[in-house]
């Protein structure tokens, strides 16, 4: 079994092997430690001098990566916890993401910023958030988020080697130990892989339904670890409640381009959006807005499921109560159909 973590680690290894311009930087990423979540494990042994441990200076780190990218390298920066991306806001918004357009396309910034997001580990309010929502819609920034499905490593490797613009690569921590094997999934699910028109490297949107199920009567859009919870909920919804779902799972969150959500919702007339970031002004809000702009009164029902608008508590029962779960997805779906 290959886990998401191994897949990402292998992608970094492959990228470093294939292009000597690839450089990894981050806090505590050297062997034997290999980063707080071990995504960079072992890499500094094989590529000394190209895997650099840094001071606790997230803003400078992203700035240095931007400078390297402007001068022809392909840097990958690890931000130890996604919560810390608040510290790199100026570097992303006023620098890395602006340069290509502001300088009239005279430069490119192929910079990848990887970071683990999400809760369920009891790390509490400042180490459990899904903050990618803060950056979605930033002009010039691409945001990718792998899920249980497909090949997370391929998404990462392709953007490191072939990307043209700054990328925020949000990895939900709960994904790391999941398997990336497709074969068992394919027995159960019919999986279509669609490539967004606005993606310049591999970052498919998946359209998934249960093999042989009747036509779907609900569309659920989700990404990251929420896609795995949705998968579990979808099975139960089908077998227990005869609610048949078409799942839409993008791996590119922004630029925002999900014609599959519109197409699916046009058929099912019902759309549920599941995300781990907090509800207000989140990813789901934009999905709702765009879908309604497209379909208007053809939609019968639309709902968002997200984390509560509170900080994420440390205590396990408290934390569980604010994050979406398989049960809350089932409940939301049942309320709509």
């Amino acid at each position: 079994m290959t886990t998401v973590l191994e897949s990402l680690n292998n992608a970094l290894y492959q990228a470093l092997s294939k292009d000597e311009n690839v450089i990894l930087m981050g806090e505590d990423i050297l062997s034997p430690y290999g980063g707080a979540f071990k995504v960079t494990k072992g890499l500094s042994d094989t590529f000394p001098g190209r895997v650099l441990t840094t001071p606790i200076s997230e803003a400078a780190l992203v700035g240095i990566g931007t400078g390297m990218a402007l001068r022809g390298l392909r840097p990958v920066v690890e931000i130890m916890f996604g919560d810390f991306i608040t510290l790199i806001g100026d570097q992303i918004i006023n620098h890395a993401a602006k340069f290509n357009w502001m300088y009239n396309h005279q430069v490119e910034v192929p910079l990848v910023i990887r970071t683990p997001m999400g809760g369920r580990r009891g790390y509490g309010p400042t180490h459990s958030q899904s903050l990618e929502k803060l950056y979605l819609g930033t002009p010039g920034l691409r945001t990718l988020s792998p899920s249980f499905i497909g090949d997370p490593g391929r998404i990462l490797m392709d953007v490191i080697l072939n990307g043209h613009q700054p990328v925020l690569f949000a990895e939900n921590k709960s994904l790391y130990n999941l398997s990336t094997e497709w074969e068992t999934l394919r027995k159960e699910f019919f999986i279509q892989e669609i490539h967004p028109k606005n993606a310049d490297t591999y970052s498919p949107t998946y359209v998934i339904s249960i093999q042989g199920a009747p036509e779907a009567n609900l569309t659920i859009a989700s990404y990251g670890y929420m896609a795995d919870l949705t998968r579990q909920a979808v099975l139960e919804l089908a077998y227990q409640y005869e609610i048949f779902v078409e799942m839409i799972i993008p791996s590119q969150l922004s630029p925002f381009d999900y014609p599959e959500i519109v197409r699916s919702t046009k058929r099912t007339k019902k759309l549920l959006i599941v995300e781990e970031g907090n509800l207000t002004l989140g990813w789901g809000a934009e999905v709702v807005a765009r879908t309604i702009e497209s379909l208007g009164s053809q939609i019968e029902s639309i709902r968002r499921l997200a984390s509560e608008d509170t900080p994420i508590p440390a205590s396990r029962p408290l934390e569980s109560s604010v994050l979406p779960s398989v049960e809350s997805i089932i409940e939301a779906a049942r309320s709509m159909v």
Partner: protein
Amino acid sequence: MASIVDNTVNINLYQRLCQIRTFEETVLENFPKGVFFGTTHTYLGQEANAVGVFDTMEPGDIVFSNHRCHGHFLAYGGDMRALFAEMMGKSTGVCGGRGGSQHLQWRDFYSNGIQGGILPIATGMAIAEKKKESHKIVYVFLGDGTLGEGVVYESLNIASLWQAPILFVLENNRIAQTTPIEQAIAGEIRARFEAFGINTEELDSSDVLEIRDRARNLVKYIREQNAPAVLILNTYRFGPHSKGDDTRKADEIDSIRETRDPLIIHGARIDAEKKSQIRNEMIAKIHEAFEYALADPFPIIEKNPGGLFSVGFEGQR
């Protein structure tokens, strides 16, 4: 004391000082006429810094400049018509009118209008060039006001740790917009850089030759040692921070102009007739660049200006 140089060199340096001075005067003179859009931060009084420092530059070296970038851009060799056009928002501008006064990119010259944010980027550029063994170095500019930004110190720390071949040029004009350094900076400025173990030199001069000589020593060190250095230039700006926002007393500025004008100081080395010839030629060139830029077209409005980044659902197209 500045080194003795021959007359051709002196004349060339004077021409470059005069170019920046006349360009910036033209900018301030024409702003009220409404030909420029947005704002500006002129380099009046600080001309010798860019001209002196860049006299140490070799082809392919990199510059990252800040909001007060016109002087740096012109001293780097940037085109006056393209700069005027950029400030007017014309399609012939340095960045096609997208950036305006503080956001320039041409060859290996870059500028951005965020205080301090450019320092890690310039540091990253220097580290990249070192890794590529290109032997290029980076010049990055900051002002006294920028010393309030935390990312400055993150950058200095890493530049020193990783021995980035970069010259940090601090232009201390003693006032940040309207706030004098006494109200913004605790302790010694120089000590802030030395604390990171970076080779730091300080100069209180508006003499282009002195500045050039001091920069030359540091640049030689950077190239030989593949390590960072800091040049603190204590200087004066004659004009407002932007336009009409100078809170200093008129007699204070008058006395600065008398004692610290780079054109007067360096001009003393050149005969009066030659100076007036240089000045007249420069006025004519700048007038021509300005008129061309004025006649240049505005950018064509693209329906989809975001290009790659612009999206919409198919149903709406």
